[in-house]
């Protein structure tokens, strides 16, 4: 029988992992320098915990039968797990304050007809802080993360879930749900067919097209008499944010989800037609895990590693470095001396790669790869250069 992997599952062979670690190492250094601390939550959670925020569709979670009839799920994202871990901690410790966290994790999802999928994400969260300072920090940290992995030309598409929700609430209650779904799915046709007077349909369609540079969008706002501009504190907030965030940005108020745990800014980082990262502010999620239901304002983002790996391929390492030293025992009798020599070299050169030749082929390969020190151990002597006839181990 040939044992194959289920669809969507994948082995990460040494070169894949070398490339994955290339990203993780760089992102980790950035997060560390910004004062973020690492966290790792379990792969398996109670399904009810994953769904508590009300935004994850149970059909997208790969479910696992627990021992005592309970239903478990493989995490489809990490934020819900972090909220589950920290909600109760905030309840126990009133002085917990701001938590800055980062993670590297695999996530699992059912993707309809395409079957299940395992993907890797690196992400950060700030728990316990709101306002322009925290949101600005997240955007600048995101920019720093992207720069550390050599991505220079990206586009930030940013919306504000709270503002869009406030705008939707200016429409008759019976249509709000349909408007939200239509805007989230960019379904102009469905919005045109809403059972509303033409003047209101026009307003709904304006809402769908509220995107452009921040300057353009703010100008549109002031030119639309039906918009309750003065009663929208989110607008002032966005103006303050764009005072702080000077990077290139497309302000897009249709960037919402039909079911959203995001409450404030939401964003995607785009390169060509690919989404490199996404995130947003979620001020209510932790309350679902807080025994007294207290809100803990939070914001975060995650980077999609597979997409980054495709985009950054030219600059990623394509081979492992060759060893600095190859120790060749001339016969089995020389093995103790060879191990001693290798140990000594590792002590003397803590960063060097020291390998033992296990087969004659190792010597040929080392020569081809230009290994600078091939050390043959023979009769207690150490000679530079190897003879392929020499290796002690059997071919």
């Amino acid at each position, binding site marked *: 029988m040939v044992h194959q992997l289920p669809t969507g599952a994948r082995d990460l062979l040494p070169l894949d992992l070398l490339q994955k670690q290339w990203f993780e190492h760089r992102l980790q250094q950035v997060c560390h320098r910004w004062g973020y601390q690492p966290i790792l939550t379990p792969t398996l959670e109670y399904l009810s915990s994953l769904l508590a925020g009300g935004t994850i569709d149970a059909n997208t979670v790969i479910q696992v039968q627990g021992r005592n009839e309970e239903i478990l799920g493989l995490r489809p994202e990490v934020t819900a797990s972090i909220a589950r871990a920290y909600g109760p901690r905030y309840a126990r410790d009133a002085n917990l304050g701001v938590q800055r966290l980062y993670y590297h994790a695999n996530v699992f999802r059912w993707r309809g007809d395409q079957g299940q999928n395992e993907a890797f994400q690196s992400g950060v969260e700030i728990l316990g802080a709101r306002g322009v300072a925290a949101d600005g920090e997240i955007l600048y940290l995101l920019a720093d993360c992207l720069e550390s992995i050599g991505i220079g030309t990206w*586009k930030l598409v940013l919306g504000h879930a709270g503002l869009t929700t406030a705008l939707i609430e200016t429409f008759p209650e019976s249509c709000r749900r349909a408007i939200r779904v239509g805007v989230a799915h960019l379904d102009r046709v469905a919005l045109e067919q809403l059972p509303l007077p033409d003047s209101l349909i026009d307003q709904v369609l304006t809402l769908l097209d509220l995107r452009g540079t921040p300057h353009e969008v703010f100008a549109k706002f002031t030119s639309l008499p039906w918009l309750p501009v003065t009663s929208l504190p989110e607008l002032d907030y966005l103006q303050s944010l764009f005072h702080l965030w000077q990077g290139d940005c497309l302000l897009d108020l249709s960037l919402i989800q039909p079911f959203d745990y995001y409450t404030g800014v939401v964003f995607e980082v*785009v390169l060509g037609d690919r989404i490199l990262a996404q995130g947003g502010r979620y001020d209510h999620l932790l309350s679902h895990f807080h025994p007294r239901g207290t809100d803990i304002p939070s914001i975060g983002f995650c980077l999609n590693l597979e997409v980054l790996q495709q985009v950054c391929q030219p600059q990623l390492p394509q081979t492992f470095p060759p060893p600095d030293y190859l120790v060749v025992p001339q016969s089995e009798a020389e093995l103790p001396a060879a191990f001693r020599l290798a140990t000594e070299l590792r002590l003397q050169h803590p960063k060097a790669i020291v390998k033992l030749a296990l087969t004659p082929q190792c010597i040929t390969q080392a020569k081809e790869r230009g290994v600078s020190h091939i050390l043959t151990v023979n009769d207690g002597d150490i000679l530079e250069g190897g003879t392929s006839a020499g290796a002690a181990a059997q071919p």
Partner: protein
Amino acid sequence: MVVTFALPKGALLKDSIQLLQRVGFDFSAFLDGNNRQLQIADPTGQAQALLVRSQDVPIYVSYGQAQFGIVGEDVLQEKTADVAKLVDLKFGRCYMAIAVMQCSPYRSVMELPPHCRVASKFVRSAARYFRELDLPVELVPLYGSVELAPMTGMAEAIVDLVSTGRTLRDNGLVEIEFLYESTARLIAHPLSWRLHDRRIHEVVHQVRRCLEHGM
């Protein structure tokens, strides 16, 4: 930037090509009976088109291989692809309906017995409809000639797309419920649309103008 359209083989192709001709793109080579090419460029070099099965149009668009696609709403209801639905193109009008044999004792959906068999090519639309009604049925997925299912007694009813109703009549079937109307849609890759590329918006604008002035 060359704009790519994913065009559906079959009933919507001719109208799609006529519309795009009026917008200024000529893909009429697809209508030539001798044509075997699946990808052709517009003579101006400004656009190209991919000829794909209608069910595959939203897939090419959601993967970003085509910025635009033309496809029936019935396909979009069946394939939940991440695409922006921009314009109702008004052609290819048909509707999804439930039909039974003329001699069947059932004259409305609510009369169908629970757990009866319903055959369809549109399994998702059918499943969603019966779930909303809270009527448990056994769906029999078929690829075509769905009318045969009730004729042979395999199913009590069918959920199928109707344009003139002639196929139903000729096979002794009668509609008992209307689900939704479907026409062709202009769809786009959501990011291409969001990112406000001038070319993309021009195409949509021209298509809208063409429709306003009548096909």
